[in-house]
């Protein structure tokens, strides 16, 4: 019996200065197979469909269970996590390419450090006094926890930024992921002490007003964060903050 196979087309680029080429692979199908399994199979046998030796594919991956946020890439044109992309749910040939909005490193690997820089800029942390024993934290009621917890599920995969028409060099837009973290920390009884600073950080160029409400972010988010509602809420807070700052002179 002939083995069932899976067809892949993978965009390869040896470095940012090298030309991009597409390579075809034909791999043995296995039940439950995902796109990261395909990458591992290629590493163990780096040969294209036409029998030409090639190199193992460079890509980011870590947990393989869609919680670390590493393996975001474009699969059949859509930004998603390679580990939770099962080949049985994808049309073949499965076309895999790197995220397009971030500097390319090699093959499917890109540099997403901009998100971590953005998180610094909005002070996405709780300013605790110290780690010594200061007793229990503030009371948080379950109703509040149920609002905050989903926002804290962001895995920094940057899919929301990849699909946002406004996320580009021209606007310098921070993107939905960072805005969600602003809401999370502003909601916290201690975190809100930095609320004004966070809102001001979102008020300037590249801030929240760049959002064009295309709503692609909420559609593509693998963790289903309520991104568009969050952007609306934070937009309103930023406007109020701007008004207050204006009146204060």
């Amino acid at each position, binding site marked *: 019996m002939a083995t069932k196979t899976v067809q892949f087309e993978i965009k390869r680029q040896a*470095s940012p200065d090298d030309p991009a080429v597409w390579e075809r692979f034909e791999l043995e199908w*296995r039940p*439950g197979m*995902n796109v*990261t*399994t395909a990458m*591992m199979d290629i*590493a*163990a046998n780096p040969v294209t469909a036409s029998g030409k030796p*090639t*190199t*193992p594919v*460079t*890509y*980011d991956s*870590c*947990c*393989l*269970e*869609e*919680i*670390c*946020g*590493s393996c975001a890439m474009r699969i059949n044109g859509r930004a998603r996590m390679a*580990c*939770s992309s*099962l080949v049985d749910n994808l049309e073949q040939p499965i076309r895999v390419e790197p995220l397009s909005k971030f500097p390319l*490193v*090699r*093959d499917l*690997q890109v540099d997403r450090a901009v998100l*971590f820089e953005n*998180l*610094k800029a909005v*002070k*996405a*942390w*709780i300013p*605790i006094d110290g*780690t010594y*024993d*200061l007793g*229990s*934290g*503030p*009371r*948080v*009621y*379950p109703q509040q*926890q*149920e609002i905050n*917890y989903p926002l*804290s*599920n962001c*895995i*920094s995969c940057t899919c929301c930024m990849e699909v946002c028409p406004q996320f580009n060099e021209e606007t310098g837009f921070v993107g939905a992921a960072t805005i969600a973290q602003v809401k999370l*920390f502003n909601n*916290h009884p*201690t*975190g809100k002490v930095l609320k004004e600073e966070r809102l001001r950080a979102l008020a300037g160029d590249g801030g929240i007003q760049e959002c064009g409400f295309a709503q692609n972010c909420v559609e593509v988010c693998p963790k289903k964060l309520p991104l568009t509602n969050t952007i609306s809420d934070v937009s309103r807070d930023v406007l109020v903050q701007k008004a207050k700052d204006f009146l204060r002179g």
Partner: protein
Amino acid sequence: MAAPRIIVVGGGLAGLSAVIKIAEAGGTVDLFSIVPVKRSHSVCAQGGINAAKNLKGEGDTTWKHFDDSIYGGDFLANQTPVKLMCEAAPGVIDLLDRMGVPFNRTPEGLLDFRRFGGTLYNRTAFAGATTGQQLLYALDEQVRRYESEGKVKKYEGWEFLSAVIDSKGMARGITALDLRTMELRSFASNVVILATGGIGAIFGKSTNSVVCTGSAQSAVYQQGVTYANGEFIQVHPTCIPGEDKLRLMSESARGEGGRVWVPRTPGDKRPGRQIPEAERFYFLEEWYPKYGNLVPRDIATRAIHKVVYENHLGIDGQPMVYLDLTHIDRATLDRKLGGILDIYEKFVGDDPHDVPMKIFPGMHYTMGGVWVGVDQMTNIPGIYAIGECDYQYHGANRLGANSLLSCIYAGFVAGPHALNYAKSAAAQEGDDGHAAELARQTELNAKLLKNEGEENPFKLWRELGDTMTKHATVIRYNKGLKEADEKIVELIDRYKKVSLADRSQWANTSFAFARQLKNMLELARVIVQGAILRDESRGAHYKPDFPERDDERFLKTTKASYTASGPRFEYEEVDTQFIKPRRRSYDAVN
């Protein structure tokens, strides 16, 4: 004098905890991590973190937490550090709460707790079923705060290759590889804190992330650091079998009432839901009436093995059993277990709200690790180890939800100790060792890059994983373990003929992997040979030919040291000053 710079390798819970303590005390840290620290393997922890806060009116105490942990670990852990950890636990939870971890809450706004394996108390604080992710993020945020103040410099995308040790045998820094530019560099520091996590990759498929290779631990082991209790490997009872990895299905599923069962009739072809209650065999509940589905992991894993391989009752004849949540209402499941149920549905295609999950045990955690003292320092002055890569908190079997605690606690211990050590460390005399170590690493890299032969490192790795999983996990026989050791020796030999399909000097992942593989092979021998020598059964280490615990001969810590011809073993007395070892048994009714 300026505050000393300290190197921390690894940015999971343990590493970040140490970084925070050092930065808070005025030190500065160079933090190295293969991945951006926010993507570290700690995010995979699901169920929760233990602390005897006694917020459920059960009379829980830190002593009971201590006793459960020592008993659960079959008395192999040194008792002093475990006792201190359990006593510190309530304060750790308070701190995490203050850092903003979105823990689940009671109606009154207090922390909620659930039950986990190996205890009769609701002692586990949790944030849905993504507790590790939430804890890691909280620490990551605090470290980002220190980073923005200039107290922490991150080297993300750098891989630790070795320690730099001077002519007096003291740590003086590390060598590391930039995984993008492939630049090799050495970095100076009197203190190196290793927080490099687990070793799952040695077993091929496990619940671990792909970065959990144990390569760093193995590298320092080969430089003279002692490795302890390597043979104690936790196989988690409930995982989702997969082609690329075994995905964890948290113990919290059972903590919230999940039941494990198989059809009473071998080969029953009906879908699980159609099998009536009377025809289901809830074997954990029958065999262990007091703890039921919440027996410790080693016990549950062996029970599943027995029901599948001895009683031949696996689902449809396959090595799988049901983990059933369908009797619990949807809203409760979503509130308490949402994250992991989504994962099951995404990867398997069935909705666990409606259909019992199919699970099987998988390699999960190493209780063994780098030998350290109570201050977390290894036998080489200046080198510390914390988190899963140290050996000291879990004995022969770790209780669920103690790992997040041990990571953070060990980081909190190591940070201040390391800073004090760095301030007082003897000044450099003679050669600092940097030039020699750089030369050694340069040569290793050059040799690997131009090596010719017919071996593919990824294929060798699969063979290693197969033999380790077959011989060195749930059930161990000396004959099989010896076969595994011979296989590893063969693989070490074949490794000499590894040739890389990619010889470039830019983001070359197979090069980095091949370096890790060599270290995995050396550490695999420590695991296998340690298991051969331990002719008893204790915790996760189970030999049918030696089914009883033998305190006379083996209530001892295994210590392995590297030699060119293989590991050399010695044994150390265990600190049992607080709780006298007693027979470990979870099947009693009372």
